[in-house]
């Protein structure tokens, strides 16, 4: 199975010289089980370039099939979808998986295509699109790949996915706050919390953490939201993102074999990302971790198991 990174950024795309090496596109990762159609995780702006490349495969003549797993529908995880070329070719089949909610998923995704915002309505995309609601913790098969999921700690709730295929596994864990200071769900949280968390919430957090650790158990590659530095987290614990130390802690608890830092802050320069990677490697080693630490950049390709 091959994993390719097309967008590694959080929040908003950031073009410019300062992001040339890591890339400025928002979240998108392609997972390719051997000989199988692509399983794409998140549809940030990175999906645009992936889509162009897919046109050179069977998608170019309307015979392509792809699945897209959406962690959550915040802009940085869906804003590339209207620019995903395979959707404009009749005959292509695209399955979109996202967290189930009160409104039908198709209605949520078509909002992005409403006339005031975008010239092409979702209904005018010629490919066949099917929307599948995912409940937290659900598991399902895509071809030979087995997909499992767990709930994350993020405003409006995000979902982590694990894909098992070719005797190997990759876990995508973005976006999430650590499972320690507060629970983020559907309420708007204006400022960092003060005071001690009630026991019931602490238990809920512990359960959420256990779900993520179980999902990442022995993962060959764990991709983890590390948008914040410790200083930034102190100011914005309610924004729903983690620090490298949180990623190390979960990766160790789960026995992951490789940890990949992901969902870089928009204003983080390439040099700053280099420094964070070096610091995280040192911290992992000091903690006695035996896994390799890498940092996601556009174009990074990782092979796990058979390929």
């Amino acid at each position, binding site marked *: 199975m091959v994993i390719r990174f097309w967008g590694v950024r959080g*929040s*908003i*795309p*950031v*073009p*410019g*010289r300062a*992001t*040339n090496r890591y*890339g*400025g*596109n928002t979240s998108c990762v392609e997972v390719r089980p051997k000989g199988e159609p692509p399983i794409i995780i998140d549809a940030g*702006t990175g999906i*645009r370039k992936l889509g162009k490349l897919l046109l050179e495969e069977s998608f170019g003549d309307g015979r392509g099939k792809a699945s897209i797993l959406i962690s959550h*529908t*915040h*802009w940085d995880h*869906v*804003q*590339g979808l209207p*620019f995903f070329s395979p959707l404009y070719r009749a005959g292509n089949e695209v399955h979109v998986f996202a967290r189930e*909610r009160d*409104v039908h998923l198709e209605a*949520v995704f078509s*909002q*992005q295509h*409403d*006339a*005031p*915002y*975008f*010239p092409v309505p979702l209904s005018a995309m010629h490919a066949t699109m099917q929307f599948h609601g995912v409940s937290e913790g659900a598991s399902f098969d895509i071809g030979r790949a087995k997909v499992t999921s767990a709930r994350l700690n993020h*405003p*409006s709730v995000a979902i982590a996915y694990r894909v098992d295929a070719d005797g190997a596994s990759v876990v995508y864990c973005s976006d999430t706050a650590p499972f320690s200071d507060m629970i983020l769900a*559907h309420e*708007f949280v*204006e400022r960092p919390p003060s005071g001690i968390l009630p026991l019931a919430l602490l238990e809920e957090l512990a359960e959420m953490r256990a779900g993520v650790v179980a999902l990442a158990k022995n993962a060959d590659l764990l991709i983890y939201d590390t948008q914040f530095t410790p200083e930034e987290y102190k100011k914005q614990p309610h*924004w*729903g993102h983690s620090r490298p130390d949180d990623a190390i802690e979960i990766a160790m608890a789960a026995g992951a074999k490789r940890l990949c830092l992901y969902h870089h802050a*928009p*204003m983080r320069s390439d040099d700053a990302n280099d420094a964070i990677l070096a610091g995280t490697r040192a911290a992992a080693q000091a903690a006695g971790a035996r896994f390799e630490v890498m940092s996601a950049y556009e174009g990074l390709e990782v092979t796990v198991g058979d390929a």
Partner: protein
Amino acid sequence: MKVRFWGVRGSIPAPGPETNRYGGNTSCVSITTATGGLVIIDMGTGLMHLGATLMASAFGKGAGRAAILLSHTHWDHIQGLGFFPPVFVPGNEITLWGPGGSDHVLEGILEGQMDPNFSPLQTLKNFSASFEIRAVQVGVPFEVQGLTVTARLHPHGGTSALAFRLEEAGRVFVYASDVGYADGVPDAESIAFYRGADVLLHDTTYKPEDQATRRNRGFSAYDEACAAARAAGVGRLVTFHYDQDYTDDDVDGIVASCRALLAGTAIEVVPAREGDELAI
């Protein structure tokens, strides 16, 4: 007036080394008036970087005042709003003028961007600054930040977009992005709207050969922009809203072609480039 470019790209941000020179952020331009007023046109991703700069000024202390003119509500013209730090500082006062039948309709569309499904902000009401939304009356001059502004409605594919004419002490700046003329020919009323502009910033999304297959999308090719500039007798033509797939070399080509088309006229061609400033 001092015009500064924060985002010059159309449709979707285009990061990568191939867009380093002109920039990959979507549409956003700022105008500083002679008296120090601030007018922003469009809120593409360039707005985030303008906002970061503004935080070092009165906006960081909650004493900032600005007007935003919005051409239309396609994503590439509004997606920077949630990342504009001045809206999160109490005391700042920002008034947005844009298209729509009423203030209420325009506010509803901008609210849609903050819908909890898509944005952690959940609603515009979570802005801490005062953020007033006003629908523009097309053709009726109004005052913002000491400038006189007139808006004109342009055809833009299946919809329309506002163009703005800004005047200060006899100086004129026209912003005309996202315009697709019927049959690719700038009409007489548009020309009249541009006439006498010191600077005409005009949509140059496409090369003519790409425009040929994309006419219905509602953008201009650079030859149409040149025709408009020539007919209106403007001082300078600013190229703008480059297609997301064009590299810096492609844009170099667009600029060179415009210069060739306007050779023998007094019109100077100035490419919009992130970070550049133009005095009028």
